[in-house]
């Protein structure tokens, strides 16, 4: 495992940092003990995949799989190889999705966690493949799948191949449905576009962290298309809850328990 070898939190100094929302100065130790949630404004800062896994699943239960699947540049898209190499170097990982198996409350689950730090968590062939394998593992082993979403959408540098990931991952959700294995999605900041419009939105149960950005269209597109003025909470967790698109908004500190209960309640297999 190379989990989070180089992951970073918003820096200020080594001992302090600044809340990305209210800009207050925070003790790093306290902040991290508080799961990277600001104690003043309760802003939920983004987590790396490694951090997420550490605070969510049973200690040392995570076994990473498919970590050797590496994104490549199938279309020879301008500047893509360089960007990809940069992301790999920065993260010491080959793709933004970390997946494998773990336990929660001692129950086995198939999991995937998206790292927004890796090219904005965008979904190319490899991200789609890892999500698909995660869901298929859930279906094949008769265990629940849990996916933490964090993505700007499809990775356009892989063109139509990226679009096809929407279909492929959806096909994997269908496998879970046929197998009768639960699939729980957690929307974290941000969950957008091609990811939202495929496997993310058709989970059996959808949880979201408070005030995450969640939407179909990028802000620019959306603004152009606006006849109706967008409400203040547009494309937030709260907006989605209000429109029935998610099941609960769960503060980070309750997320582990909620997932544990859901896994126990929805069980695995028929």
């Amino acid at each position: 495992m190379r989990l989070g070898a180089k992951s970073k939190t918003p820096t200020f100094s080594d001992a302090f940092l600044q809340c990305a929302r209210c800009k207050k100065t925070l003790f790093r130790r306290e902040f991290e003990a508080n799961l990277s949630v600001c104690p003043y404004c309760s802003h939920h800062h983004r987590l790396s995949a490694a951090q997420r896994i550490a605070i969510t699943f049973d200690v040392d239960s995570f076994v990473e799989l498919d970590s050797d699947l590496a994104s490549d540049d199938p279309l020879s898209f301008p500047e893509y190889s360089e960007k990809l190499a940069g992301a790999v170097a920065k993260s010491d990982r080959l793709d933004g999705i970390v997946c494998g198996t773990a336990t929660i409350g001692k129950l086995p689950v198939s999991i995937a966690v998206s790292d927004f730090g890796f090219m904005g968590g965008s979904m190319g062939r490899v991200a789609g493949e890892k999500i698909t394998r995660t869901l298929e593992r859930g279906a094949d082993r008769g265990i629940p799948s849990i996916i933490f979403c964090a993505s700007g959408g499809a990775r356009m540098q892989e063109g139509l191949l990226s679009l096809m990931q929407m279909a492929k991952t959806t096909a994997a959700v269908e496998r879970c449905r046929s197998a009768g294995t639960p699939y729980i999605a957690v929307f974290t900041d941000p969950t957008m576009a091609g990811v939202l419009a495929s496997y993310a939105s058709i989970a059996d149960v959808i949880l979201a962290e408070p005030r995450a950005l969640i939407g179909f269209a990028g802000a620019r597109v959306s603004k152009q298309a606006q006849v109706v003025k967008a409400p203040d909470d547009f494309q937030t967790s709260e907006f989605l809850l209000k429109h029935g698109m998610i099941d609960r908004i769960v503060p980070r500190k309750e997320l582990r328990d909620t997932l544990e209960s859901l896994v126990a309640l929805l069980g695995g297999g028929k």
Partner: protein
Amino acid sequence: MSTAPKTWKEWEKPLIELEEALGKLQELANRATGTERDRLLEKIKGFEKRRDRYLDTKYHNLSAWEEVLLARAEPRPYTLDYINALFRDFIELQGDRRHGPDNAILGGPAFFNGQRVMVVGHQKGRTISERTHRNFAMSRPEGYRKAIRLFEMADRFNLPVISFIDTPAADPSVESESRGISEAIAASMLSMFELRVPTIAVVIGEGGSGGAIGIGIGNKVLMMEHAIYSVIPPEGCAAILWRAPERGAEAADALRLTSRSALELGLADEIIPEPRGGAHRDPAVAAESVGAAIQMHLDQLCKMSPDALKQHRYERFRSVDGLREASPSDLPLGK
């Protein structure tokens, strides 16, 4: 690249001049007699050859960007043109049973060469009022939810599903987001994966990202020769990558969004050839080609069992990117 055309009409200019000249010659020929007439007819033949040569050369060598412009051209045949040409007794069913009608996606049962099928497709408009009525073929959530109803009905009554894809994108408005456009697209794909009847998707014009693939889960995915299929509009891609929407032509190249690219990448199963100069020059012939291609694939698929059809569709999309069995050594960056 700064000289990239802004509309398909730009490269049709020489053509228009040619055809005007042709028209005049024809008039002269009609009034002429004897050798003068023969001479004129000869000349006409020459002009026609030049026109055809121009069309052949031009339309077989369109740049990706030109394909984008052509795929969006208003005279191209739309879904209803194909329905009228190829289907009989089409009965449009409008209810999504949730919110309201959607005019950007239409559908209903119809006879195709005597066979009962369910047809669903994006619909563009030609006049300004038609375009507004069709919301520029940008479907709202209710369009996909109506499609789901039709897919499920097709499954119950054993009707193969034919979908026609022709949309710039799903509707990205605040209203669409409020009613869950993302969920609607995903649920529509999911529903198509559940079907135990044949599904054939035909990209007839613009295959615009999620809005397109939302009804695009075919056992077979066919593309018209001059259709495009893209994860993002090239202008949007250029805007995001280079903050320069005007560099759409470059992005179009990079995105590999033409039918030929899709076929090469294994993402389309067949290209349906268009008449010389594009489908809009002879919609009847274009429809005939579409009909023949659909019939051919339908015949093959109808031989499969319901379970096999579902499994086939799953396999197709599961393996489409060649990664299914990927191990590190397959990939350049793998360690």
